[in-house]
């Protein structure tokens, strides 16, 4: 290696054991770095950084009304990220949660669209269940392609997300378009029984948040306490060892994708049966992709993900606020999300490595291979 690159990358030295401090600090440091970098960008863009900080990071907490919106936004992110994290720990990279979310919304909408007159308390639970099944079915295509055809699950699941968007457009511009909807690409408004009951009166927070929290607990029990969860983690950390122990890779891929699809589909169903009350083109504002960031930022740990989902929800709501009050383009949210994940990936390196500034030369590196 040339001298300039040694100076450029001070060497990372592997720690004897992973640092717990660094594990806990990494997301906090990443968030701080991302905030500083993005504020710099806003200044360059000629925006008032104080106004942006106020709108993005404080306003969401200043009133119960806006904080309830944060909780509402956190729900789908949390649910999707819990499902994805299980797969990521098994090194199954399902990045098609966006499509699974959309299919969940479509499946759930089938009941009120086809039976608009139906009444009864069974409707919204049936919609949630159907949505979850729809998401899992969409993910099962990826699982089949990976297990039986050996195809890369990253590419297949992403392509399926792009197809799902087109499928949604087709339904909303064609057979499912509301005939009295002034030609807007949206379905009919759902009947009362197709709506998840509200949890806190005066807000849009509904029972699905409780379901999400219960499933987060279930994810924790599954990953930390169950044998199946253990097998998945071994498969991710040491694929060869998992193979010798007789843990099937195909089983891990199927399980990871089905769980991820189920959770994302449920989130999609809860979105149409909750705050929206109809199937729209804009059902997902990139939840499926943002949830990937939520999963990593939460350290792929069920408890950490609860915190990171809240953080991401604040960024979403705060981004909306800043668009109104500080004239910040909404694309700034995506820039923030991307830079947050990059900052996290850098800071998480210090869990396993420490920096050493001493200039190691090529020869010494040869003598002591690590």
């Amino acid at each position, binding site marked *: *290696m*040339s001298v300039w*690159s040694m100076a*450029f*990358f001070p060497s*990372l030295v*592997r720690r004897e054991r992973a640092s717990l401090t660094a594990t806990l600090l990494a997301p906090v440091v990443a968030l701080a770095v991302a905030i500083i970098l993005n504020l710099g960008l806003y200044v360059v*863009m000629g925006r008032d950084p104080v106004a942006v900080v106020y709108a993005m990071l404080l306003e969401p907490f200043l009133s119960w009304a806006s904080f309830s919106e944060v909780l509402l936004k956190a729900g789908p992110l949390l649910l999707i990220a819990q499902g994805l994290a299980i797969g990521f720990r098994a090194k199954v*990279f399902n*990045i098609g949660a966006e499509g699974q979310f959309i299919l969940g919304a479509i499946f759930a909408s089938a009941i009120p669209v086809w039976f608009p007159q139906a009444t009864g308390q069974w409707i919204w639970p049936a919609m949630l269940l159907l949505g979850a099944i729809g998401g899992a079915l969409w993910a099962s*295509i990826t699982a089949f*392609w990976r297990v*039986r*055809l*050996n*195809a*890369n699950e*990253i*590419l*297949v699941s*992403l*392509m*399926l997300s*792009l*197809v799902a968007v*087109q*499928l949604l*457009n*087709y339904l909303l*511009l*064609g057979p499912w378009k509301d005939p009295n909807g002034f030609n807007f690409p949206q379905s009919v408004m759902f009947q009362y029984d197709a709506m998840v009951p509200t949890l806190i009166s005066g807000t849009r927070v509904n029972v699905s948040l409780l379901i999400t929290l219960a499933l987060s607990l279930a994810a924790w029990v599954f990953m930390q306490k169950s044998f199946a969860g253990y097998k998945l983690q071994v498969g991710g950390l040491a694929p060869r060892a998992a193979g010798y122990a007789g843990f099937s890779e195909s089983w891990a891929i199927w399980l990871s994708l089905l769980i991820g699809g189920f959770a994302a589909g449920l989130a999609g169903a809860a979105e149409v049966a909750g705050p929206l009350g109809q199937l729209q083109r804009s059902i997902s504002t990139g939840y499926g*992709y943002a949830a*990937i*960031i939520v999963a*990593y930022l939460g350290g792929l740990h069920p408890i950490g993900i609860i915190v990171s989902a809240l953080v991401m929800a604040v960024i979403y709501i705060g981004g909306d606020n800043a668009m109104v009050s500080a004239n910040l*383009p909404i*694309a*700034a*949210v*995506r*820039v*923030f*999300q*991307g*830079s947050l*994940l*990059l900052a996290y*990936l*850098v800071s*998480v*390196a210090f869990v396993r*490595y420490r920096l050493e500034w001493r200039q190691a030369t090529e020869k010494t*590196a*040869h003598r002591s*291979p*690590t």
Partner: protein
Amino acid sequence: MNAIEFILSGMLAAATPFLLAALGELVVERAGVLNLGVEGLMALGAVLAFIVVYHGGGHFFGFVIAGLGGAALSLVFAIVALGFRANQVATGLAIGIFGQGLSALFGKTYESLTVKALPKLAFPWLSELPVVGGLFNQDIVVWISLLATFGMWAMFTYTKLGLVVRAVGENPKAAHAIGYPVISVRVIAIAFGGAMAGFAGAYAAVIYTPLWADGMIAGRGWIAIALVVFGTWLTGRIFLGACLFGAVSLMGLAAQATGMDVPSQLLSSLPYLVTIVVLGIISANRRLLKLNGVASLGEPFER
């Protein structure tokens, strides 16, 4: 002009964004690195080129800036994924989201504006041929891309440089042991891939469809990554794959022109569906992938 002539004459231009991005990713993957951020790199290149051309900077300068922008963003990938040994999948996704966000941010005030594309240069005599004549009437960037494809093939087949890149990707420990600078080779490969993705985005935004719209790359970066797998890491096959996708993306237009009653959404998802199907067919042949695949793809290099 019938459907076949239409597809033949437009195929190479439609294939060029796929081809340029896939050739860049080929070098990156041959060096053992998986950069999944191509979609974001293309989006950034597209918006930069569009802005330059819109303000009268000209196409050449637009491509230069797009290439530099793509290379700069891909160096961020290099710092995170190689410097800090982060998970390459996650880093690539982050770069993708970041690049798409930046392109939307920069392009906000240019939404739906248009620029002038480049004129076509006809190959004398051949472009007069019936049916296939359209193939030989292309803009300068298509001709350069064809030369670049040939150059890439020659580089990997005949030059020491190609051998070094492959060695670094196959067995970085051995390459390091015989004195090749593994990290430096990988960083340069990543920057090259970023520049190519930038060019690909530039072609899409200022020549192929000379108009700016947020999300205009529309999955082409991802298809380019899939093309590298389709082509089993071989230049010639990647070129054929890019032509296939160029043709597929024109089929939708051709079908609509002939008045076929197919939902436009189905035609729009055709490239994605073809990607899924072809990916299944090629990957099912495990021996083929093993034979041509890159042994240490995606694995961080530690001495």
